[in-house]
């Protein structure tokens, strides 16, 4: 499978530049006894790809289903293209929202051929037969399924059904495309391939998408902005780099990527450079970047937690280290993963996961660990 051609043959609907495609204002929804969505504000700009990322039960799917119109919010508002679509008192039915949606289960209709599935939205809209055929051919070409137009879904592979679902959602040229964990039913290698393909498609035709997933890798590949959710609230909104390198909370740090968290006490503050020096409980002192807001209140003696990613550790001392002696660690176990070694170490009582190209040398099962300069980050 090759990537779709970069020339945008598929023209997205005309868009008003400034107005957000989707705007959520203080959105709330209770399901049973739990506040599934507990006050969410978010806006999605035209052409943007926003990914809602979070563990199961964080409210991401509930949010998506409210946007689609399958659920009505208990509070707050949903605006589509600047017009109210849902409030607690009013909900535009799904069929009037001009959206496209790709479902986790694909939801490809088994009694209709590929072409009939894809053309359904146009058929319902009352388009002429020739228009429908042209529209179907265009999107099937886009997802490279033209050869299978006459087949029934039962004759297709999972990946192909996935493409049918995508083509069906695109056929009506929706102003906003909703995707509910669309790749989670595919096997691992196909899933990885489809990520890049979806991203290329989204960019080439300028789609506006709201994508729900619990898979951080998927979110990193697909998002212009990631919205990390937990317990019905937004923990952080940011670009993939921001979310990964400068997480706003411990939760974000541990949910996106693997987090090594080291506790310590602030020992010096350099507000100009946006840095603090922390005396780690496990020994050694370490310069770390920190969020501006946290930095404003930081003073020597206050407690702090430092986040370090497994790939940011070194077993040799860097030329200009942020540390003084290196962290004294003991060896627990080692696995070889092809591209690198995965080491489990322990600093004091804190377990650490470290990725290293080299095996490293240990004396009596101990060694000194260094952070890549500029990689440490204080999490609130």
């Amino acid at each position, binding site marked *: 499978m090759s990537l779709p051609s970069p020339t945008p043959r598929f023209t997205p*609907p*005309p868009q*008003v530049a400034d*107005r957000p495609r989707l705007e959520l204002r203080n959105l709330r929804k209770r399901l049973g006894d739990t506040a599934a969505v507990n006050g969410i504000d978010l806006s999605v700009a035209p052409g943007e790809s926003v990914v809602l990322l979070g563990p199961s039960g964080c409210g991401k799917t509930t949010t998506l289903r409210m946007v*689609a*119109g*399958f659920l009505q919010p208990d509070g707050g508002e949903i605006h*589509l*293209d*600047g*017009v*109210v679509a849902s409030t607690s008192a*009013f*909900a*535009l*039915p*799904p*069929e*009037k*929202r*001009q*959206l*496209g*949606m790709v*479902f*986790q*289960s*694909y*939801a*490809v*209709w*088994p*009694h209709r051929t590929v072409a009939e599935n894809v053309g*359904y*939205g146009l058929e*319902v*809209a*009352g388009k002429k037969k020739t228009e429908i055929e042209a529209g179907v051919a265009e999107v099937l070409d886009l997802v490279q399924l033209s050869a299978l137009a006459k087949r*029934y*879904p*039962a004759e297709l592979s999972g990946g192909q059904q996935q493409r049918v*679902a995508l083509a*069906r*959602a695109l056929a*009506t040229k929706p*102003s906003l495309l*909703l995707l509910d964990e669309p790749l989670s039913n595919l096997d691992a290698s196909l899933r990885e391939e489809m990520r890049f393909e979806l991203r290329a498609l989204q960019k080439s035709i300028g789609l506006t998408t709201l994508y729900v997933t619990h898979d951080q890798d998927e979110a990193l590949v697909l998002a212009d902005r990631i919205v990390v959710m937990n317990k019905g609230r937004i923990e952080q909104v940011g670009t993939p780099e921001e979310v990964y390198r400068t997480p706003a909370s411990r939760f974000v740090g541990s949910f996106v990527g693997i987090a090594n968290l080291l506790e310590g006490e602030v020992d010096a503050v350099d507000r100009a450079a946006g840095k603090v020096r922390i005396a780690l409980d496990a020994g050694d002192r370490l310069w770390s970047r920190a969020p501006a807001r946290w930095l404003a209140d930081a003073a020597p003696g206050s407690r702090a937690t430092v986040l370090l990613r497994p790939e940011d550790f070194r077993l040799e001392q860097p030329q200009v280290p942020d540390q003084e002696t290196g962290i004294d660690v003991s060896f627990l176990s080692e696995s070889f993963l092809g591209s690198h070694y995965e080491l489990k170490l322990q600093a004091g009582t804190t377990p650490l996961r470290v990725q290293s190209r080299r095996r490293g040398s240990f004396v009596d099962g101990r060694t000194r660990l260094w952070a890549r300069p500029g990689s440490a980050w204080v999490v609130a």
Partner: protein
Amino acid sequence: MSEITASHHLAEGTRATTPLLRRLSSLQPVRFLIIGGSIAILLALIAYPLALLAGYSFIDAHGNLTFDTFQKAFARRGMWQATLNSGWLVLFVTVGACALGVPLAWIVTRTDAPGKALITLSAGISFVIPTFISVISWIFLAAPNSGYLNRFAVEYLGFSAAPLNIMSFGGLVFIEIVGVYPLVFFAVSAALNNIDASHEQAARVLGAGRLRTTLTVTLPLVRPAILSAVILVMLDALSSFGAPAAIGTMANFSVITTKIYDLLKFPPQFNYAAAVAMPILIVTAISLLIQKYAIRTENFRTLTGKATPEQITRLGRWRWLAGGFCLVVAFGTAILPVGALVLLSLLSSFGAPISIGNLVTKHYGLIFDEDFVARASIIHSMLLALATATVCATLGLVLGWVVERFRFFGRELISFLVMIAYGFPSIAYAVGILMGYVDLFYGTLTLILIAYAGKLLPIAFVLVRNGIQQLSTDLEEAARISGAGWLRSIKDVTFPLVRGAVGIAWVLVFSLSLRELSMSAILAQSDTQVMPTVVLQFIEDGAVELAAALAVIIVAVSLSMLGLIRLFTRKKTAAVS
């Protein structure tokens, strides 16, 4: 549903232009009307007559709560005897049906006995033939003096007196057992088939012998199936009307259901009839509660699977004994009665020697004679069956959808109401219908249609609901998000995907309406006779040849309609995730 061009307003953002229309569309009026209408029909069909029934038996002429009606009703002559008879009937039939059904199920699913296929076939036939029709066959075979088996026994086997008497309480028990044992047989067979071989193998690996495994693993696993079947059999026996009416008239005894029927003869005494129906209702309610709480929780244990060769017991020498048993059962419960029925319908007169020369078609000629009551009853029955099947399939689809897809407080109430109708004894239900609708629809087929539709709706509801349950909600939501309104999503996605279940429901309801006797007997007037009531009339009048001819028609139409089910199930049904 009016298509509002929301697209423009969304795109232009002219917020104020159509707030009213947009608000209207958010109510989804078509969906509201169809669902509301279906629920209203459900209430009219089931809740209203049942409420009346309870009201009549507990409230006196002045509107006060009273138990007087019960006292008076049960003080009537023969009422306690009839109640007692019903009790014995239920006991004997339940024991008999289990004694026949459970061993047969085990032989068929777990042994290498010959003649297994024959048993499944004959259980199917017994199941399809209603008891008021098998009465005809057995009158032919075992009437005290003139029954052909009795004559054979006296003339050739040296009996001094006729050994068999179908016109007795024992005869009634026998006919009821033959009619209901398939319930036990099919339920237990299915359960035995569904036990995953690994359950039993695990016990064998741990050192349990074959017998010990059967007792400690297999039987406990099929216990819920046996219990469910027992409850169904009890309810069936308790509310049975056809055979008790036919045999009771001749042998001069009554059960509760025939007493209710008598109370409704002119002048009808609704309040007594309602009061007498109450014990049946109470037993039914208790049984359904037991079913719901004691059995359902257990039922989830059964797993899917298929009996594997390792689970088949080799019977060795006993094989032929088991085979012989199968043959006797098949012969006695299916081949003999069906043969007798067909033979009787062709015989010049009951009692005439069986010879080619005595075979005539004059009974069928009379059945189809324009001036005779039977012909009109065929037309009535067909019309009613068509209408009932269509009403039930449609209602089943809408209500099944509502219960599966709609989150609102009343959905539990809907399935509760429908299931009440299922457990409700036909005869009592018919009393309720009569009280509720006699003024509006006296002497019309509509009155019978209401009764049939209410009583048979549960079958359609359960079948279609199961179909909808297996459909992922996403399939419909995908249609909605593509721009289809509610009704359109049902038409384009839901209906095509549950068409098989709807079709099967239609056919089943059609067949069952065709043979419905207990409600028809109460509701049919001289101008609205249906086939089963005419058959019963023929039996009571002693015109068994005519009864047989009309019964053959009922059975033939039922069987060929059921054959249609194969058409629905065989059809290519695409895999649904």
